[in-house]
């Protein structure tokens, strides 16, 4: 549904994104994550036809974004980082304007506006001036705008920023509902959100792809599952554990960290019991996407 090849964007001497390659299949939700300034917004702007790329190609919904920009624009709903609102207009007038821009008029527009307002939780807010709305409600109007034509492809730049926790849950379940018959790319800082929603991720850092693929694969590769063993009253614990068949790699220390493809816990427990040591703890650690992200981007505290 979305295919990006060798995409590069330079602003003068500054390279914003470099040689991006990824694809999103129909019905997938792709999480697009990376530190601030990594090039997420630039990439989304290229995919929506707002910016031209310096090199490379992008095909969205079967159309090249450069050569057939108009067709792409008809099929993509886009929520930019700041919701693009006309502060003077009411919610209803604003959505009607966007609907007409996208070719929906008359009673069809009324119906669609009613539907999307219901969907994003804006029912009864038609007459409010968008400029007077709180950040969360502006974000909802932005989402409503992106959904108005029920586009097959949705590109959402930080859809939950500025929302309160209850609204975040609402927007997440909305995006979950959209999956299947919509293809979604969503960028966010909130990694838990990606974990909750996305089947696939692209991690981008300093304009380059740091990792991509299925969520579990990326997580596993960047920060593999490991086992922490804490034992008291013994010498040469690490060596003894390392000698076990199931264990692939051992990091010695106060707490011994063991990497292994299969679960080594029964073997370790038996070993500790045989040697007469005291087993304090033996746990399996599944790293979060956060750990994987930090391992990939490698700059704690972030840029």
């Amino acid at each position: 549904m979305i295919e990006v090849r060798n995409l590069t964007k330079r602003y003068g001497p500054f390279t914003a994104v470099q040689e991006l390659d990824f694809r999103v299949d129909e019905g997938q939700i792709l999480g697009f994550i990376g530190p601030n300034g990594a090039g997420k917004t630039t990439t989304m702007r290229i995919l929506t036809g707002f910016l031209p790329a310096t090199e490379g190609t992008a095909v969205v919904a079967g159309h090249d974004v450069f050569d057939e920009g108009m067709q792409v624009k008809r099929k993509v709903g886009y929520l930019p980082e700041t919701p693009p609102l006309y502060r003077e207009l009411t919610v209803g007038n604003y959505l009607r304007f966007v609907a007409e821009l996208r070719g929906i008029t008359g009673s069809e527009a009324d119906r669609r506006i009613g539907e999307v307002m219901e969907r994003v939780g804006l029912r009864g807010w038609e007459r409010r001036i968008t400029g007077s709305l709180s950040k969360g409600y502006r974000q909802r109007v932005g989402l409503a705008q992106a959904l108005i034509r029920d586009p097959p492809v949705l590109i959402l730049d930080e859809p939950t920023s500025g929302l309160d926790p209850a609204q975040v849950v609402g927007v997440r379940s909305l995006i979950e509902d959209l999956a299947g018959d919509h293809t979604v790319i969503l960028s966010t800082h909130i990694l838990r959100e990606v974990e909750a929603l996305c089947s696939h991720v692209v991690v981008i850092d300093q304009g380059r792809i740091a990792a991509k693929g299925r969520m579990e694969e990326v997580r596993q590769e960047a920060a593999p599952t490991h086992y922490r063993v804490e034992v008291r009253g013994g010498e040469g614990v690490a060596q003894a554990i390392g000698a076990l068949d199931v264990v692939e790699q051992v990091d010695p220390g106060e707490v011994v960290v063991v990497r292994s493809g299969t679960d080594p816990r029964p073997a370790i427990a038996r070993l500790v019991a045989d040697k007469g040591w005291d087993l304090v703890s033996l746990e399996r650690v599944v790293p979060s996407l956060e750990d994987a992200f930090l391992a990939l981007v490698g700059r704690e505290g972030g840029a």
Partner: protein
Amino acid sequence: MRTVWTIFKKELRVYFVSPLAYVFLGVFLLIAGMFFYLGVALTGEASLRVMLGNLAIALIFVLPMLTMRHFAEEQKSGTFELLMTSPVSPVSLILGKWAASLFMCVLMLAGTLLFPAILAYYGDPDWGVIATSYLGLFLVCAAFCATGLFASSLTNDQVAAGMAGIVMLLPFWMVGSAGAVVGERAQAILDQVALLPHLRGFTKGVIDSADVLYFVAFAFVFLFLTYRTLESRRWR
């Protein structure tokens, strides 16, 4: 064409839900009223010649203020991104905005129709001359709105856009009276680009196709420059 209409409606709505439109209409009518009074009091003629000539000059300062918002504000508030990612061509965008500002001009000019009505009550004005004068003024508006839109497309700062528009228009007024400095021959050439010589015919009841062409070309050049600027902004 349909999107031109959509943009046009939106722009008018934005004009009228903010105080801007009312302030503009008020200020413009105040200035026009002053020129009308001075013109009639000084010349003792039942004509709008003085008022219309001066209004053309006043428009140099007023219209860039009317149009400065258009692209500058869209860029600043991020709605430009909405427009450029919607299936709308830059041409319909420009035409919609131009038409909306011209519509505001028509309202402003319609407000000044009170003055010929006053003339008709007290005297016997030449309606043909008044009609051509208004046509001339409308063409001035069309040209100046195009210039103002171009200025607005250059920056995302409204005030800078307004000033830039005025600065672009001023030379067209000033070169008309450069004769004392550059000599009569040079003045004859400058009169071809100057604003007021092309308006003179209209205020005398003459519609010269060269004058009409001047304003049409004026508007076209600036609309075209606006188009090029919008296109090039995307590449930066």
